[in-house]
């Protein structure tokens, strides 16, 4: 049974990804800051398949030890889904420097360092999948999300070069770019704004976390053996 590590796993998209993977026969180690009751309930349902590690990705210097702990406790890792991220919004001119720093640390530096160590177990076995969760905002831009947008573009740039680096070791690296989804990250967007996002979609709706989880799942299957360095956009057509 293949083991997949999912960051930001206890709620939102990460949680949907965990559910999808468990249904499809993977074991999962979820990492996050605050364990939720829904995650714990899922763990009861999948006792021998779903695990968790509580960790704050602000602690970059402990990521190496975290990766070691995961490999020695749960075994060889097949897949890594870099999903955890902060979504601070605000006009750049008034955004506090500490928030700029935190966004870059949690959304870019942490997934890069985690990938460095988690990919070792894939390198040795010449088999693995890395999936970075970016956003349509990485390419479209959005008022009030310049720093967040920069971090999401950074991740897709990371994907493309790393795919070239790890290809010969039979490890694929891809980006999944969701459009607007209804999660705690977007809970401040309401009414008018939501309607306008929906209206801009050719399908007149928004993608859901389950839609995105399906694509992540697909990239882990043998059917995606020859897909690397690419981006799958799931946004109900909003950026078409």
């Amino acid at each position, binding site marked *: 049974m293949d083991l997949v590590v999912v960051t930001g796993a206890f709620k939102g998209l990460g949680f949907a990804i965990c559910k999808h993977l468990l249904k499809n026969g993977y074991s999962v180690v979820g990492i996050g800051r605050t364990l939720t009751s829904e995650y714990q309930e899922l763990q009861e349902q999948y006792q021998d398949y779903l695990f968790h590690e509580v960790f704050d990705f602000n602690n970059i210097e402990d990521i*190496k030890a975290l990766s070691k702990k995961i*490999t020695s406790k749960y075994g060889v890792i097949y897949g890594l889904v870099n999903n955890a991220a902060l979504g601070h919004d605000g006009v750049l001119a008034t955004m506090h420097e500490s928030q700029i720093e935190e966004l870059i640390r949690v959304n870019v530096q942490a997934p890069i360092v985690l990938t460095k160590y988690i990919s*070792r*177990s894939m*390198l*040795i076995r*010449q088999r693995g999948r890395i999936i970075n969760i970016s956003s349509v905002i990485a390419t479209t831009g959005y008022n009030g999300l310049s720093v967040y947008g920069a971090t999401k573009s950074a991740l897709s740039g990371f994907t493309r070069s790393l795919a070239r*680096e*790890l290809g*010969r*070791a039979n490890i694929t690296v891809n980006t999944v770019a969701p459009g607007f989804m209804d999660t705690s990250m977007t809970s401040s967007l309401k009414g008018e704004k939501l309607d306008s996002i929906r209206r801009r979609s050719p399908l007149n709706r928004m993608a859901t976390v389950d839609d995105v989880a399906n694509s992540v799942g697909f990239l882990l299957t043998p059917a995606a053996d020859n897909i690397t360095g690419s981006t799958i956009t799931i946004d109900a057509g909003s950026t078409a």
Partner: protein
Amino acid sequence: MTERTNIRESITKSFHDALERTDSKLLVDNLSDDIVLLQSGLDSLGFAILVAILDEELGFDPFAMMDEPVYPVTFGEFVSIYEKISPTE
């Protein structure tokens, strides 16, 4: 002393392992201390695999433990980094 011999042996064995995994061949007669790593036949991905194998086998990665980036040039330097940083020493 035995600890040191073990580290050298592990590195030599894993070096060949990494060569095999990257479909590469040793381009020198043997891995003596003065062999320049870049001319050994192992490429950058091969070195990443070597460091990963050693991390699993010896339980540490000296390059990640050092405060400054260090890039050994010869095989002898590579081995001595592992011997010096070894937490069991």
